[in-house]
């Protein structure tokens, strides 16, 4: 999956990929103070494509808001909400909305799920439906944070660590491997990284084709940009 940090203040974006073995679960957001947790599990293609490159995607997200007593499991099949000992199941094949005292859900048929957790976070999960008989690929999900300003300064995770901004500078632009993707030097978190200008797709407005967003790509699983190493974010369970 590709991660994207869009910074409209600077009219710029940062991006990186993180891949691991299918089945790995990553911590995306963790805010102990507000009791919020978002974990995602990746899945691989149906079989190894001819180019031998295994692509992985998120197919399942576990979302917990401890303080509100809310738990959500979203996968490519359905959406389950657990609250006060009750479970509600919503299907991607329906358009539905659920308004509760602590959580609002809005499902747009076969397309997106918008989640608002009271006084904490708002996000959208996109469903990418792939032709059922596609020889390699299968359905997968995208996770887009819409509003995170109420989370505490200690929020962390692969996405969460960027919620309160990131300071960086890019300099020394030079030709890269491909003419349309120049390289540059990025100074971030006290390190000097070699980055490449590229783009990644934002699918919020066009779930089929997406929109290209130019970004500085950080190589090797975001090493240097993310705190620690990508493996530090592997967790054992979805909740």
């Amino acid at each position, binding site marked *: 999956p590709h991660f*994207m940090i869009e910074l409209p203040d600077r009219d710029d974006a940062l991006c990186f990929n993180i891949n691991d073995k299918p089945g790995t679960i990553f911590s995306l957001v963790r805010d102990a103070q507000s009791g919020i947790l978002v974990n995602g599990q990746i899945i691989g293609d149906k079989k190894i494509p001819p180019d031998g490159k295994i692509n992985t995607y998120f197919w399942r997200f576990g979302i917990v808001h401890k303080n509100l007593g809310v738990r959500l499991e979203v996968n490519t099949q359905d959406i389950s909400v657990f609250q006060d000992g009750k479970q509600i199941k919503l299907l991607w094949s329906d358009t539905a909305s659920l308004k509760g005292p602590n959580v609002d859900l809005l499902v747009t048929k076969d397309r997106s799920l918008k989640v608002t957790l009271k006084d904490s976070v708002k996000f959208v999960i996109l469903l990418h439906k792939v032709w059922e008989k596609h020889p390699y690929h299968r359905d997968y999900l*995208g996770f887009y944070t819409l509003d995170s300003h109420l989370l505490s300064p200690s929020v962390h995770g692969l996405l969460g660590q960027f919620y309160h901004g990131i300071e960086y500078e890019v300099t020394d632009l030079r030709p890269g491997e491909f003419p349309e993707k120049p390289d540059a030097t990025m100074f971030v978190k006290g390190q000097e990284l070699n980055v490449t200008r590229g783009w990644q797709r934002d699918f919020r407005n066009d779930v089929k084709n997406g929109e290209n967003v130019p970004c500085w790509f950080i190589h090797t699983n975001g090493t240097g940009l993310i705190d620690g190493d990508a493996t530090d974010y592997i967790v054992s369970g979805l909740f």
Partner: protein
Amino acid sequence: ARRLQKRSTNEKTVEVYRVAVDCTVTSRFAHTVMTSMAVNKANVSQEIFFEMELPKTAFITNFSMEIESKMYVGEVKEKEKAKKQYEKAVSSGQTAGLVKASGRKMEKFSVSVNIAAESNVTFILTYEELLQRKLGQYEILTRVKPKTLVQEFEIVTNIYEPQGLSYVDAHATFLSNELLPLVEKTVTDKKARISFSPTMDQQRKCPGCDGTLIDGDFIIKYDVNRQTSLGDIQIVNGYFVHFFAPPDLPRVPKNVVFVIDRSGSMSGIKMQQTREAMLAILKDLHEEDHFALIPFDSSIEPWKESLIKATKENVAEAMAYVKKINDRGATDINGAVLRGVEMLVQGKQSKALPDRSVDMIILLTDGMPNVGVSDTSMIQQNVRSAIGGNMSLFCLGFGNGVDYGFLDVMSQQNKGLARRIYEASDATLQLQGFYDEVSSPLLSEVDLRYPDNAVELLTTNHFKQLFNGSEIVVAGRLMDNDMDNFLVEVFGQGFEEDFKVQGQARALDWGVMYPDEEYIFGDFTERLWAYLTIQQLLDKSKTGASDEKANATAKALDMSLQYSFVTPLTSMVVTKPETEDGPDSPLIADKLTEEQRQQAEKMSGRHYGYASSPPRLAYYPPTPTYFVDGD
């Protein structure tokens, strides 16, 4: 200064009868009343907009509306309390007033009210400011944009300066050859009157058309006579104000270290502007000055290891070096500024720099530190303790990304100033202008002393420097009316010798000085004192220790409420009359902080203010997006 127009432009059913700007300046304290009157000639009610611009250094003191002979008067409230009131209104779909930044010098205030058919409305906005002397002059700036022809249009300014006027100049950006003779200027020794009142025909862009020529800035510049070294002390109604800017003082040589950010984010126009400005500044250095250049990114590489004299040869060499400064790397502000401090300290200790000279550091940067010490409060602490009150730090912040608050506090903690440099085409001039303001110190360690038993509630009376073309202002309250012992002393360090003057202050008899004026502006000295005190408390609320900050904020709030000033701590609330659209709803006038202005500019075109029901007025910050997806 205002725009009155209807929302629908299908028919011309709103007529603007009167636009008047009445400004009275008494001893630099300017009190401006802007009045706009319009009539809704339609047979249905409609929304009328009132939009005006005022200098950002001014505080609104009143805003009122008169609708069908009924007056709705503004009330200054604590911001949080006012917020509650208008949040209620906003949630019920009413519009609130808006304040947003407008260019470098002004901020815009706009409101709208729904006016019944065949009714008229008069908006009256009052604001006050202490004019600051810069480069040897005071400036009164009035922005007028009536957008339509106005039956009665007038700008009248009366200036009363007991010291006497040395010159008065008036011009406007929209003055054509035809309009120029309409500016009437009468100047006597201590009074000036400038008026401009074109008829409807004279306002017209072309015969028979509705467009108006009146669109731009009306600017009055003046200065006062300076005859005594002690300055001018005026006593009115129990308050005194001391204006200190002695004539004919030789300038003090300065030792200036330019700390120049050349990190990656300065690339392009900012770096180019810095180079250009530095070249112009270097050219203006006086031969007796000493200077150093410290370009920095993640590494700090001074041009020379110590300050050198600004001889022609050295300046030429520095200029050649400046031309080659290029952007690269990250930003180590802490290391670079500390290096500058160290250089100055060493220069003084080794006697390489003259004893009687002023030390200053000018930091040119665009961004947040991200290498070395990157915690801004830690940098402030380090810089403050290294400087130890012995030199001044001036900061120039480039671009909208700059953390201006950080630079502002750091400068104020070190007896300096911060200024934002806007990335417009004239950034070089802005830089030079700032440099001109601070580059000619006349005195250092200026102390203005008054008898302890005669005055109280004194504003700041110690100043690190007095710059050529500026002025020091101190005000306070007199404890009794016995002026026999009101001895005033001023001490400072001049170039060759100490500066020391003393003299006796005496109350002015305004009745004798201005016999024809029945009433000028009775309590202006008290209001001037209040304005100055609030400004200084607001500064202290950013720079002091935490308990000092809290005390300063509380005092500034109290005084803002007492004197009815709209400051960053207060809001002015006017309750609009009930209309068929809904119940009463408040209009709000606010004051922006520099950070809010910067935020507003980032919106570039979007409105700053409190979110209100129509989406076009709402302010939403650009939200960063964080996502993960697959291709």
